[in-house]
């Protein structure tokens, strides 16, 4: 075992692409092994055979186009961590850090941990020639477009922090694999989604070799956190634990959530006519309408800076469904004075969000103007 007494050495694991089930099982194995004190702090790269991954409590059938995945041989699996569904293409890259909660340099508070580790990842991405930045709470962006997302979980004295990176992302395939609260997969929908994410290949014109990307990520982490990275491999004990654990992560019980309790979701679409233009909100909430999972905002209004809409979507993600909290977050967002949308106010956005929440139970959209009247058959604003 590596000497980890100083907490500054990390075992680095790398492997050719694995199946989603193997990676999910390994997540469980390594965090268990770490919590038992039988392995050192560990950094692990992940490459997948193409797959769709849902969060721990998500309903696969609501999040993933299961027939399409089955037809195309795309794996479906469930993470041990929370958050939303994601499509993982053949060139995407992930990494995980397994460490003790009291590891020097890593804050104990989850929010602080996200900040420190995202900033370490930002350092690595910028070494590749990009201008990435940390977007609280747990994303990394370039000019308002997400390039990397993170999540994590804990077990006893250990935690695992996960990071995914879009290297050469296929937005069209993602829209086929995952189910979004959008009415149809149109050119506008694809364009809208493309404006929210970016990838290394898009930023640099071409993606550098994966080995180069991996090395710069390690360099960024080493530089920011002061870790020494030591290439290692799974212990024989971990290999045995993986063999024991894998069948469960391949089972329908795990993948379709029969054993962990899924939370169903409902979608709604609302078109709202404000003086400055149409606002379209496509929202996904959990079934009991407790939390806004996410919103997609579009329309024919003009926002400055253009990233403002993406930023507002981020602010509203995971907001408890409570009129006061939704209103407070939107008002605080506009109160910074950094956002200007001609003819559209914070109150317009509050009205449309509350309407989307109200309509979520039947999934039907509606059209409403800024004066409180409803209209039908408004132009497609996406």
């Amino acid at each position, binding site marked *: 075992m590596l000497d980890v007494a100083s907490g500054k050495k990390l075992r680095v694991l790398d492997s050719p692409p694995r199946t989603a089930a193997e990676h999910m099982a390994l997540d469980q194995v390594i965090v268990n092994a770490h919590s038992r004190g039988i392995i050192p702090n560990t950094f692990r790269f992940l490459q997948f055979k193409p797959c769709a991954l849902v*969060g*721990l*409590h998500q309903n696969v059938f609501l999040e993933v186009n299961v027939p399409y995945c089955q037809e195309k041989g795309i794996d479906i699996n469930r993470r*041990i*961590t*929370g*958050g939303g569904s994601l499509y993982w293409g053949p060139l995407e890259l992930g990494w995980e850090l397994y460490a003790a909660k*009291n590891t020097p340099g890593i*804050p*104990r*508070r*989850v*929010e*602080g941990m996200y900040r420190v580790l995202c900033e370490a990842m930002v350092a690595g991405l910028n070494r590749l020639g990009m201008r990435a930045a940390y977007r609280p*709470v*747990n994303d990394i962006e370039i000019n308002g477009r997400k390039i990397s*997302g*993170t*999540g*994590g*979980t*804990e*077990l*006893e004295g250990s935690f695992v922090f996960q990071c995914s990176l879009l290297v050469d992302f296929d937005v069209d395939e993602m829209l086929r694999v995952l189910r979004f609260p959008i009415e149809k997969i149109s050119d506008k929908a694809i364009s809208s989604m493309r404006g929210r994410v970016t990838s290394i290949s898009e930023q640099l014109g071409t993606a550098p070799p994966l080995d180069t990307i991996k090395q710069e990520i390690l360099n960024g982490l080493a530089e920011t956190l002061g870790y020494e990275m030591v290439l290692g491999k799974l212990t024989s004990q971990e290999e045995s634990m993986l063999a024991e654990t894998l069948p469960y992560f391949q089972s329908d019980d795990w993948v379709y959530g029969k054993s*962990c*309790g899924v*939370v169903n979701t409902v979608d709604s679409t609302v078109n709202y006519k404000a003086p400055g233009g149409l606002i379209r909100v496509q929202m996904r909430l*959990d079934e*009991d309408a*407790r*939390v806004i999972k996410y919103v997609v905002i579009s329309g024919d209004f003009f926002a400055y800076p253009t990233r403002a809409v993406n930023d507002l979507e981020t602010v509203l*993600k*995971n907001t*408890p469904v*409570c009129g006061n909290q939704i209103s407070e977050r939107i008002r605080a967002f506009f109160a910074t004075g950094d956002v200007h949308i001609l003819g559209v106010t914070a109150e317009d956005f509050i009205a449309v969000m509350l309407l989307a929440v109200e309509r979520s139970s039947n999934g039907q959209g509606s059209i409403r103007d800024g004066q409180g009247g409803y209209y039908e058959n408004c132009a497609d604003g996406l």
Partner: protein
Amino acid sequence: MNIDKYNFPDDLYYDTHYQWIRKDGEKVQFGLTPYGLDVTGDVLYLALPGIESNISAGDSCGSLEAGKWVGRVYAPVSGKVTKVNEAVISSPGLISQNPYACWFVEIELARPKELEGLMNSDSFVALITEELKRDA
């Protein structure tokens, strides 16, 4: 006892997972302290063990999801679950409003002596003080 912005009542026990434990005869109730809530973030989903289930001290017996973080709920003592707080499962946002009123489950103590292994407010404040210094 108060530290920083936190209040830790003297009549409660505490564990290393930032949970408070209230003893009432042969039973205890437990929940998340305000500090634990700050560490994890606002709880969006809470999963707890069912009534009649037997849980063991120190073992994970549930989970809580806060955004993209999944934390665990740990059994502070061993015993049988006699009540589950359905209200807090339905509305985990209540924890942020009043953490000490939001008990998770009630446990019938199997080994009352396990309470001696928990912390009082003084010890818990000492633990938190060290952590706050480290993160400063």
